[in-house]
C-alpha cells in the first residue's frame, strides 16, 4: 500500500519537474506508436473494409486468420523483425536494427491485424445497410470501401484507439528490435521493464502512471476533436 502512495507521489514529481530524460522517453514512445498507428491505419482500414465488403473463396479463412493474428505475441513479432533486420538477416544491409524505425516496423506488424479485424467488423455492420444500394448503383469496390470508411469514421475511432493502446503498451517487440538503448530506443514500456527488473517497483509503477496519463491525453484529444463532428453528423434523428 505504501508502495502505491509512493508511486503516485513519484509520478507526480516526475511530471512536475519535467525531467528531460523522461521527456525524451515520452516523446519517443509517442513518435514510435503514432508512426506505427499511421502505417497500420493506411494498411488495415482499407484491408479490413475490403474483407467486409467482398465475397471470394477463402474469405472466411482470411477472416479467421486476421482474428487469430490479433493474438500475435509481441515477442514473436519482435523475433521475426529481429531475424529480418539483423546483420545475418535478409534486410541486414539496411542497418535498421536498434533504431526507432525497427520499432515502428514491429509495432505496425503487431497492430495491423487488430485494425484489420476490428475494421472488418465495424464496416461489415455498416455494409449490411449499404450493400444492396451500392450493388444497385454499380458502385465499384474501391469507391464502396472509401464511402464505408468515411461514413463509419466515428465508430472507427475506437478501433484506432484500440490499436494505439496495444502499440503504446507493448514491450516485448520493441525490447527485442529496439534493444532499450538509452537515448536511442528507450521508450516508456521498456523503461518500465527495466525499473521492474531493477526491483524499483515504485518507480516502474510511476512510469506506468505517466504512460497511462499519456494515453489518457491522446484519447481525450481524440474525443475533443471528434465531438463536434459527431454531433452534427449524428445519425439518430433529433
Amino acid at each position, binding site marked *: 500500500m505504501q508502495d502505491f502512495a509512493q508511486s503516485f507521489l513519484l509520478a507526480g514529481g516526475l511530471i512536475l519537474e519535467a525531467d528531460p530524460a523522461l521527456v525524451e522517453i515520452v516523446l519517443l514512445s509517442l513518435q514510435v506508436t503514432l508512426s506505427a498507428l499511421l502505417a497500420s491505419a493506411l494498411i488495415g482500414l482499407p484491408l479490413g473494409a475490403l474483407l467486409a465488403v467482398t465475397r471470394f473463396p477463402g474469405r472466411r479463412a482470411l477472416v479467421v486468420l486476421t482474428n487469430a493474428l490479433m493474438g500475435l505475441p509481441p515477442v514473436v513479432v519482435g523475433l521475426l523483425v529481429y531475424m529480418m533486420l539483423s546483420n545475418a538477416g535478409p534486410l541486414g544491409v539496411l542497418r535498421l536494427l536498434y533504431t526507432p524505425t525497427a520499432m515502428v516496423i514491429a509495432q505496425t506488424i503487431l497492430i495491423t491485424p487488430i485494425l484489420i479485424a476490428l475494421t472488418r467488423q465495424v464496416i461489415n455492420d455498416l455494409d449490411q445497410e449499404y450493400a444492396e444500394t451500392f450493388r444497385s448503383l454499380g458502385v465499384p469496390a474501391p469507391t464502396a470501401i472509401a464511402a464505408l470508411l468515411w461514413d463509419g469514421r466515428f465508430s472507427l475511432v475506437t478501433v484506432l484507439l484500440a490499436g494505439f493502446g496495444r502499440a503504446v503498451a507493448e514491450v516485448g517487440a520493441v525490447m527485442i528490435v529496439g534493444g532499450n538503448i538509452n537515448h536511442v530506443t528507450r521508450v516508456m514500456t521498456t523503461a518500465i521493464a527495466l525499473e521492474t*527488473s*531493477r526491483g524499483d517497483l515504485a518507480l516502474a509503477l510511476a512510469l506506468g502512471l505517466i504512460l497511462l496519463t499519456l494515453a489518457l491525453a491522446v484519447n481525450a484529444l481524440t474525443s475533443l476533436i471528434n465531438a463536434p463532428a459527431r454531433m452534427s453528423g449524428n445519425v439518430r434523428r433529433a
Partner: protein
Amino acid sequence: ADQFIVVQSTTSTQNSGLLDVILPEFTKKSGIEVRVVAVGTGQAIKNAANGDGDVLLVHAKPAEEKFVADGEGVKRFDVMYNDFVVVGPASDPAGIKGMTDAKAALAKIAEAGSPFASRGDDSGTHKKEQALWKLAGVDVKAAKDWYRETGSGMGATLNVAAGMDAYTLTDRATWLAFQNRGSLEIVTQGDDILFNQYGVILVNPAKHPNVKAEAGQAFIDWLIGAEGQSAIAAYKINGEQLFFPNATATN
C-alpha cells in the same frame, strides 16, 4: 511433490539450464518441489524482501549482505562461482582477442570507440562491469555512441550484442548456454577480477512468518552439501563445466 518452496533467483541460473538439471535431484530425495522465479537481481531481492519467496539465490554479494544485515535474510552461504568473460565480434575491431587483463581490454575498447553493449540494469553483471570501467579509468557516462545501455537481462543484451557486433560482458554460464551468438566469441577471459560468486540465503521467517523455513533450509543444506555441490560440478554443456561449487560449510 506434496510440499514446495519458492526460490527467487536470477536469469543466469535459469538460462544456463543448471536448475533444470539439479532441482529434480533434490525433489526426488526430499519430496520438496522447488519453484524458481528467475528475474533481475534487483527484482529478486525486492521480491524476497516482500516475503514472496523462501530462498534467495543470486550473485551480488554486497546486496546479499545488505539483505541479511537488514534482517530480511537469515544467513548467507557461498554456493558456487563461475566467471565473467568479455565477448565480442570475431572481427575484433578493438584488437583485444586473447587478452587476459580485463581492465586493459576495456580501456582498448573505449579507445577504439568500438560498440559495447552494457546491461545498464544494475544487475550483478552490470555492477561488475561498472567496477571494471572505473578500474580502467574510463568514464562511460561521458561516452559517446559506442557505449550502449540496453537496460535488459543478460540474454537480451547478448542478442543486442550479436545484432550489432558489439562487445559485452557476460557470465560464462549464460554464454555457454546462449545460442544466438552470431559472430560473437570470447575475446577476454581468465582475469581473477572476473570472478563471479553465487550466494544462497534463507528468507527470514521471523520477519516473514509465511516462509517455509524448514523446507527452505533443507534446500540450502542440500545445495551447499555434498550432493548439491557435486550435482553443480557435474553440469556441463559441450563438455564444459559452467559452475564451480565452492561452499565452505559442508555439513
